[in-house]
């Protein structure tokens, strides 16, 4: 994992001092509300429905145990003893006091953390696959490129006041896309060209929100050394020509659509031609330096313990189910990838207490080289667990609440904080998630349904990624009442698609029944091999409509 050098440390310390000065001036009335707004947003501080909210950056989802323990302490000392994993691999505090934020940032800086650019109209945290470097089908580790982008985008003097927020995601797996790159402003797919060189297929102009779009390809192959100059060209075109007259039309996807992907690509290429050989062009040494921080942990040379595991699974059915659903294959023989689910019924998806943060830190130290990854599905991954210790790990996490064996099932719900916390929300989302989790409490039935992404957003801003849920739920406001619109058929994978709206919206208490009917249609219509998405794509939305609105 990346470790700061004196340059990183110095800039982060200066940033904390700067925000302390800005906060002091804001509280003294020297900065008007609208002048302080973008400054505090770019330091992660929102003002929410009930209290301020601080979004802490977790660069591409990586956390060390020492950082988890510091987060736990911060939630105790400055908040109400819990935190929230977000849908962009970050962590949020729900109740900090504005005047405490500089102190919180100083505490974070001590463990090489920050809240830079986690909000506001700037380049946000670059996200990636939570299984980076431990899965067998990726070309190279995507995280060094994420770190290179983090450094380039941090305090970029030209791009601190873009028309709107800007999100970049990187994926290196050929088969899967856990980073949902095609619904990002820039999605980078790591590819190899015919000459065997590493580069990127560049997608620009995806996004959710009010106008969901799947990003088109604007360059099939970008050599890796050209990464930063090309990003700079894309951002410059966006900064100059993105709309600033209407907040709802200000994302880059609107510009790409207006110019057409070809027209946009031409503009970028023209800009890039001027800067591609500038000193911002990466060097092999610069990439190698960062790659040097992401070396393999000290894996033991193990034999496969498939026999032992099979025996343990045979003897314990619950363990068996957990292994089947929450454990993935590791590229290294004898190791496994474990997803700790933060989706226990009755707890808002992604919420963890201070004690749980410390437990996760302890688990990381004990089982996974002291590191964890936060996923955009609001779970936490232990990426390097010995196969022969899975049973021991499972026995520890079940009482902690991380062992619900529902990964990627209907109740592994992605859910934004919604109207319980967020000032933007039209409706609550957490109680909807809970009522659905209560309705579908039979794990065997969930397993039979297979992979279904149920994503819930409390408003059009789509923090819960409802557009790309197999089943999406969107909170809407109808004459002051909270209603929920359902969409079907979304995907954030390589075959990304935006869900289609089923029809008129529903009251909150109808939602479990609606989901139940939708699931019934799938069960009736599916062939043996089909997932929900397959069936939906084959039969279309019609049968679902008929059943739900019958």
């Amino acid at each position, binding site marked *: 994992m990346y470790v700061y050098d004196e340059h990183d440390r110095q800039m982060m310390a200066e940033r904390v001092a700067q925000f302390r000065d800005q906060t002091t001036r804001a509280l003294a009335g020297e900065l008007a509300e609208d002048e302080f707004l973008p400054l505090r947003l770019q330091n992660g501080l929102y003002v929410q429905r009930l209290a301020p909210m601080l979004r802490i950056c977790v660069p591409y989802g990586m956390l060390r145990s020492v950082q988890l323990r510091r987060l736990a302490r911060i939630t105790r000392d400055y908040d109400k003893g819990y935190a929230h994993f977000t849908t962009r691999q970050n962590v949020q505090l729900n109740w900090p006091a504005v005047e405490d934020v500089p102190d919180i940032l100083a505490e974070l800086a001590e463990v090489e953390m920050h809240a830079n650019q986690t909000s506001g109209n700037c380049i946000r945290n670059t996200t990636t696959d939570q299984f980076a470097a431990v899965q067998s089908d990726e070309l190279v580790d995507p995280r060094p490129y994420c770190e290179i982008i983090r450094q380039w985008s941090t305090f970029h003097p030209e791009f*601190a006041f873009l028309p709107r927020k800007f999100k970049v995601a990187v994926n290196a797996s050929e088969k899967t896309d856990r980073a949902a790159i095609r619904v990002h402003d820039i999605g980078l797919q790591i590819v190899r060209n015919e000459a065997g060189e590493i580069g990127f297929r560049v997608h620009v102009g995806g996004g959710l929100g009010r106008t969901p779009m799947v990003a088109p390809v604007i360059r099939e192959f970008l050599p890796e050394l050209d990464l930063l100059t090309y990003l700079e060209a894309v951002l410059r075109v966006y900064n100059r020509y993105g709309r600033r007259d209407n907040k709802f039309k200000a994302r880059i996807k609107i510009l790409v659509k207006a110019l057409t992907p070809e027209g946009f690509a031409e503009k970028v290429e023209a800009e890039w031609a001027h800067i591609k050989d500038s000193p911002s062009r990466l060097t092999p040494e610069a990439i190698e330096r960062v790659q040097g921080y992401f070396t393999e942990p000290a894996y033991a040379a193990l034999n496969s313990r498939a026999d032992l595991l099979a025996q343990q699974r045979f003897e314990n059915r619950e363990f068996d189910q957990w292994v089947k659903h929450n454990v993935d294959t590791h590229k290294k023989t004898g190791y496994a990838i474990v997803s700790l689910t933060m989706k226990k019924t009755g707890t808002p998806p992604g919420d963890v207490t201070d004690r749980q943060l410390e437990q996760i830190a302890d688990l990381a130290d004990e089982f996974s080289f002291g590191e964890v990854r936060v996923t955009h599905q609001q779970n936490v991954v232990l990426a390097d667990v010995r196969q022969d210790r899975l049973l021991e790990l499972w026995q520890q996490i079940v009482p902690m609440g991380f062992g619900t064996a529902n990964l990627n099932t209907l109740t592994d719900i992605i859910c934004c904080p919604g109207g319980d916390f967020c000032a933007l929300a039209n409706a609550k989302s957490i109680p909807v998630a809970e009522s659905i989790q209560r309705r579908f409490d039979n794990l065997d039935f969930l397993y039979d349904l297979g992979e279904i992404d149920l994503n819930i957003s409390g408003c059009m801003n789509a923090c819960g990624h409802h557009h790309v849920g197999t089943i999406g739920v969107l909170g809407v406001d109808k004459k002051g009442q909270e209603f929920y619109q359902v969409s079907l058929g979304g995907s954030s994978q390589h075959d990304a698609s935006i869900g289609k709206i089923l029809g008129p919206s529903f009251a909150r208490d109808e939602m479990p029944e609606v989901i139940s009917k939708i699931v019934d249609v799938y069960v009736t219509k599916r062939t043996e091999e089909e997932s929900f998405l397959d069936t939906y794509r084959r039969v279309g939305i019609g049968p679902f409509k008929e059943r739900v609105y019958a």
Partner: protein
Amino acid sequence: MPDIIFQDGSVRQNGWVVVPRSEAGDALDIPDNKSALIPAEVWLEGRQHFAGRDDIGVWFDSHDEPEILADYVHELPLIAVNFPKFSDGRGYSIGRLLRERFGYKNELRAIGDVLLDQLQFMKRCGFDTYELRPDKDIRKAAQSLNFFSQGYQAATDTDLPLFRRRAS
């Protein structure tokens, strides 16, 4: 006229008047006795007349295209870029283009909604003088211009991004 801040934080008297764009059909009101910044396209139209004068400069608005003066920037003593609202970031790109692409060497000034907390970004993008909004404390400018001792990226102020400095 409000004073002008220089890159080193020093403050000097402003000798330049910004002449706004005129209404359609009206002639531009250029003062005789003062140095004037006129809209860039007006200067371009009257280039034969204005070129070489050290008391006539130009200003760009944030939506203007600095490309129109690409070949002529060296004929200008001063170029100003207007930030109509501090949160409008287009001026940063204009600054970098004028400096890095068109090779403009003389004074580049930020005007409009210029506040303390954006000064260092402006400095990094090639602006060397700043007309701070009059209600802001000009004594704090020097600190704001130098809050960060370095940056990660190359920009107008340095063509060495941190990854190249680390390597040396």
